[in-house]
């Protein structure tokens, strides 16, 4: 089994005034390709910090992070931006769609940033992923014309459109009602199974955790437990 991402003895502290506050304390984790991994834990346990570190949005105070075979340490902001664009997809709690762009244009954005100049090629790819997330007929809508669940589907399509190594989802269902949350988790799981894309998502909702093929619980910045479950996800984990 290949490794999609790994953390080795990763520490992360934040400076708050004169005080150094540790957020992650010596986390080591190997995430296999095709995992559907949930990071759970109470507020302040370090879930979001781990996701930010895996997402090359933040740098560790010490330790090593690898996405695929590539270490993110030492990369310049420009290289990190290119790296994120190529290898990572993000799904945010608040969807973070651009309100002035249509569904189609929001999903197309990562492809434009990927340097794909051919409009037709981009459209083909965007329409294919929109069909997969069930929004094929809403491509021309603006985000404010969609429900919360539909907006999160757009965000998932945007994360998947360039076929990344890893999709990171920070509390993707926190802003949704339980029915819609279930649908979104089912969609992410379906994408994980269909494309084999590795998903890492944070949550503190037990119902959401149920979908995970691997459940890593954090407490006070450390791994409290690492539980592998059969039957869920792509089979990996």
């Amino acid at each position, binding site marked *: 089994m290949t490794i999609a991402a790994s953390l080795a003895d990763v520490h992360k502290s934040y400076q708050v005034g004169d005080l150094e506050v540790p957020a992650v304390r010596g986390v080591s984790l190997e995430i296999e390709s095709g995992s559907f991994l949930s990071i759970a834990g109470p507020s302040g346990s370090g879930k979001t910090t781990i996701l930010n570190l895996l997402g090359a949005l933040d740098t560790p105070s010490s330790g090593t992070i690898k996405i695929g075979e590539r270490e993110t340490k030492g990369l310049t902001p420009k290289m990190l931006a290119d790296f994120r*664009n190529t290898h990572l997809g993000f799904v945010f709690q608040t969807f973070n769609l651009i309100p*002035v762009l249509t569904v189609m244009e929001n999903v197309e954005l990562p492809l434009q940033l990927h340097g794909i*100049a051919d409009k037709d090629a981009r459209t083909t790819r965007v329409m294919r992923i929109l069909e997969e997330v069930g929004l094929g007929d809403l491509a021309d809508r603006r985000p404010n014309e969609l429900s919360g669940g539909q907006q999160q589907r757009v965000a998932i399509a945007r994360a998947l459109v360039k076929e990344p190594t890893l999709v990171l989802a920070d509390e993707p269902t926190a802003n949704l009602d339980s029915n819609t949350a279930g649908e979104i988790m089912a969609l992410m799981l379906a994408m994980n199974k269909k494309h084999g894309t590795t998903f890492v998502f944070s949550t503190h909702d037990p119902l959401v955790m149920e979908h995970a093929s691997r459940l890593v619980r954090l407490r006070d910045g450390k791994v409290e437990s690492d539980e592998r479950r059969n039957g869920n996800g792509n089979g990996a984990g």
Partner: protein
Amino acid sequence: METAMEPVEMAKSEEGARMKETVPGVLGLRATFRLGWRNLRRNRRRTWITATTVALAVLLLQFSNGLLVGIEQQSFDNLINYQTGHAKVYADGYFELRDEFPLDFAVTDTGAVLAAVRAVSGVAAATPRLTFQAQLSNGLDQVPCLGVGIQVRGSDTDVFRIPQTVVDGEYLAEDGEGILLGSGIAEIFEVSSGDWLTVLAKTQYGAYEALDLPIVGVIGTGNPLIDRNSFLLPLATAQYILDMDGAVTEVAIRFSARARESVTLDRLAGELGASGEYDVKGWREMEQDFMSLVQMKRLGNIIFLGIFIVLAVVGITNTILMAAYERTREIGMLMAIGLRGSGIRRLFLAEGALTGLLGGAVGSLIAVGLIIWLAGIGINITAIYGDIDIGYPVKDSIYPALNVAVVTGGWLLTGMLAALASLYPAARASRNRPVEALRHV
């Protein structure tokens, strides 16, 4: 499991066969401006307030510039039509002493000079003139002024447009005696056509000569030098008073409509200036002081009103700062999906430039509309200012003129200034750290 593809790999994949690569990490120029334009519409009221400030400044600058260009063109036409022609031939040495109107630097072989000038390609007409210092008197008061002897029979009207400026009486008769009096002098003496004045002048040998002459007509050219200081009389009469015996002080020239001024001037200089006997001067050189004044006024206008544009454009800095602050989380998301700092900068620079271009377009369009409208009907300066000298030789009404290149250039420059004004907020936005920007509430 499909692995992530580097951009180049993606270009080689299935449908990617048709995919061409652009620079990754930044949006293309078109996409940047399209997104920028839509972002401007997020807060329409703020965009319009900022754009309106720019529009007002641009309107002021473009309209006043149109007014200046119009006045300048009218002034140049006035100088050429009533005072200088396109060029003049003087005897060598006259031009340097021209303020003293020296009669001993005269063109004596007038016929030969006229023939030589008329033979030059690009010359439409030429006429001899005799300009001299004189006093006009009504028996009680004396007013110093300039007398101009003109060749009524034949050529003066081919070069100058004096007949159209007669406001009282008529133009000089071909074989008559009399003077055409500047309207300003007529006011001083409170005379009109049919009245008589005495012309007092020194001959070229220094003797005083006086001659009573009837006022045939009164002229109003709008040119203060003529209206307030000059009278015209037949050349033969002037030569008689000054004892000039067929000599003149200058030969005035009008170029044909299609002639290129500098080329024709060079030809004239080659034809007449080579011997060293004559000096050929173009109207711009003759009116060097006026031309310098025009340049100064134009520059002053641009600097003065340019300050308004800079102030208006600085408002854009504030608008972009606010927009960037409000969209901090969005900036974080864009950075997360791979937009580089330079891409963020481009986005906000585009928004600033578009605000400037929008305001500039509105201001320019209104200015163009005003200029075209007023160019048709004119602005009656006599009604506004009365007889006050506005510093330009123009009469009654001024007509703004449209200079498309200046309007277009000004518009584009406003866009560039607006982009410059957005540099700071754009750079600030691009320095956001994605993780912090995403946390922004």
